[in-house]
Each structure stands twice: as structure tokens, then as C-alpha cells.
């Protein structure tokens, strides 16, 4: 069976739950079309964020897109979020069907 498969990247970010709305609005303006969000908790340079209450909750955002867009989004995050918010980002290649969706 042959599935038409193309390469995209999956960009994942973990950051503070309070910025969800404003972060997504930002990325929207840069051309983001689709994303998936899950609730998370964790630990990093800014200490333990265990989701016991809203201020200490994280979200995990996944974005499947072309590498160009991912780099654009990353540059924006670096310039506007890295310094002041608990955040990590990482990306890797994935294979997708229906490439027109991403």
C-alpha cells in the first residue's frame, strides 16, 4: 500500500499556562494555522511548576508545520518569551499525510 507521505517538522513548546491565549494570538499573526494543546506540569530552570493552581500550571503546545514557519515562530519566541517566561522548545522531523493541511 502506498501512502503519500511528506516531511514536516513538529515543534513542541512547554510554557506557563497563563500565556496560552496571548501566545496563540501572537503565533497566529505569524501564520500559525493549526496547533494542539495539552495541560502539563514539570520542572526546569524556573523551578517546580506542579499545576497545583493556575499560576503554577504549564501547557504543552504542538505545532506541525513547514520548517520555515517553525523557525519564524522560534525566533519570535526567543525574542519575546525566552527571557521572561518558563519555556522550553524543541523540534524534529515527522512524516505526514495530507501535506496541504500543514
Amino acid at each position, binding site marked *: 500500500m502506498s501512502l503519500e507521505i511528506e516531511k514536516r517538522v513538529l515543534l513542541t513548546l512547554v510554557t*506557563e499556562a*497563563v*500565556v496560552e491565549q*496571548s501566545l496563540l494570538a501572537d503565533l497566529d499573526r505569524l501564520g500559525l494555522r493549526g496547533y494542539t494543546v495539552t495541560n502539563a506540569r514539570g520542572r526546569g530552570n524556573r*523551578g517546580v511548576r506542579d*499545576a*497545583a*493552581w*493556575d*499560576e503554577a500550571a504549564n501547557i504543552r503546545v504542538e505545532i506541525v508545520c513547514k520548517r520555515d514557519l517553525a523557525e519564524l515562530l522560534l525566533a519570535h519566541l526567543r525574542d519575546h518569551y525566552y*527571557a*521572561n*517566561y518558563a519555556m522550553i522548545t524543541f523540534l524534529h522531523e515527522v512524516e505526514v499525510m495530507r501535506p496541504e493541511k500543514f
Partner: protein
Amino acid sequence: MIDVVVLFFLLGLLAGLARSELKLPPALYDSLSLLLLLAIGLKGGEGLARQPLLPLLPQLGGVILLGMAQTLIGYIALRRFGRFDRANAAAIAAHYGSVSVATFAVGVNWLNVRGIAFEPQLPIFLAVMEVPAILVGIVLARGMATKTDWRRIAHESFLGKGVVLLLGGMAIGWVAGPEGLAPIRPLFFDLFKGVLAIFLLEMGLIVARQTSELRRRGLFVVGFGLIMPGFSAILGIACGMAMGLSVGGLTLLATLAASASYIAVPATMRLAVPEANPGLSLAAVLGVTFPFNILIGIPIYHWLASMLAGGNS
């Protein structure tokens, strides 16, 4: 004797300090705070239905000024004596210029238990005092001519959960009146104190997590967290006396002034002044001021109010 709801706070605090496994589901915490906000609003609206609204307008102006003044004074103190940078001083000050619903509810409970009456507009003051400090704080941090997204800030502030539920509850209470409210009284009024008790249990757990942060922050934060509310309470009493409030009303307005926000303000400031460290404000507000107010502050404010305005009541 210490109120039973405050005993629940102490239980949560002890459990948290002992690193107990006890945790409340976040959905329960959210549900309880929704109930408290609606109940406070309904009660206030019911009371307002019995009096003309127009004379309240100057009072609203008064408490708005009160919140703004507190923020300014707090900012100056933090800059001058605490040597905080602009962003952090502004952010902390905004927390103290705004108000805390939980502290207000404990104050209401304290007065109820002792059979002391207060004016029905106090819940409106609570709703109205949430926002001005946020705006002043942002201006202090950024100046006026900034790229601050005021539309988003206004939206976050005026349409936040707290303001909507308080004012919404008040509107419903006002429209429905005592008779209309009768069928929902068992949920919103009879359970109020039990709901507050469980809410304070969770607050105890949350406060306990601030201690490690507090230890790192040192004495100035503790001092500020203790002195600022005392100072604000006096300002609140003065403001209330100018409005001719009863002793119960004065006590509650002092409590409101002395209280510091830990929900609406942190969320908004995180977006508007991201370079301010949220851990700093929360350590002071939750680690010092909230427990101080509900354990010791409220009785003191009542005593002060009785002293200063004994004749009024």
C-alpha cells in the same frame, strides 16, 4: 474564639508545611471560588435592592481612588526602601492596591458570626477595587506612552472571572430580590460557610508552598507584607468614615484595603509586565499578608474601626 473556617486554613497550612500528600482537585477549588463569588454578589445585590443606587456613585469613586492611592504608596515604598527595580515595585504594589475575595469572605464571616451588620454595597466595592490597581501598576511599570496592549488588558481586567461573577451575582440578586432568591438560598447561602471552610483548607496548602520562596526573599518582603496592610487598613477606615459607613462596613473596607490580590493581578501582570518576578509578589501576598489578615488583621481592623468611629454605628 477562632472561627471554624480559619481552623480549616490552619489545617491546610500545617498539612502543607508537613509536606502531606493532601491535594484538592483543581476543579474543586475553581468550583468553590465560583460559589463564593456568586454568593457574595447575590447577597450584596439583594441588599442593594432596598436602597437608592445613585448616592453610591461617589462612594465608588472613593474606593477607586483608595485602590489607586495604595498602589502609588506601595510603589514608592518598594522603590525607596526596598530598592526594587521599576517592574517589580510596580507589580508588587498592584497586588496590594487590588483586593482578595477570600480575605473579604473571611471578613464577612467574622462579622456574621458576631452579628455585626455591614452595608450591602461592600461587595460592589470588592468588585470595583479589583481593577484600578492593575492599571496604575502597568502605568508605573511602563509609563503612559507605551506599546502596552490596553485593549487586551481592559478585557482581561473587566471581563475576568471575578468581576463577572461578582457583578453578575449582584445584578441577579438585585433583580430577583429576597423572594426570587429563596429557591436557591440552600445552595448559595446555607452552604456558604462550609464552602468557605474547604476553600480556606486549600488556601492553607497554597500558602504553605510559599515558605521556601519567602526564606529566599529575606526580611524586607516579610516586613512589607505586614506593614503595608496595616497602613492600608487605616487608609480604608479613613475613606469609609468619609462615606459614613457603620463599624461593620468600616471593618470590611479596612479588610478590603488591607487585602492583596493573588488571582486577578498575578495573571494580568504576568502578561503586561513579564519581566517582574511573579514569585516575589506571591511570596509577600500569600506567604505573609493573607495569613496575617485572616488570622490577626481582621479583629484588629474591627477594633480600630470601633475606636475611630464608635459614634457612627
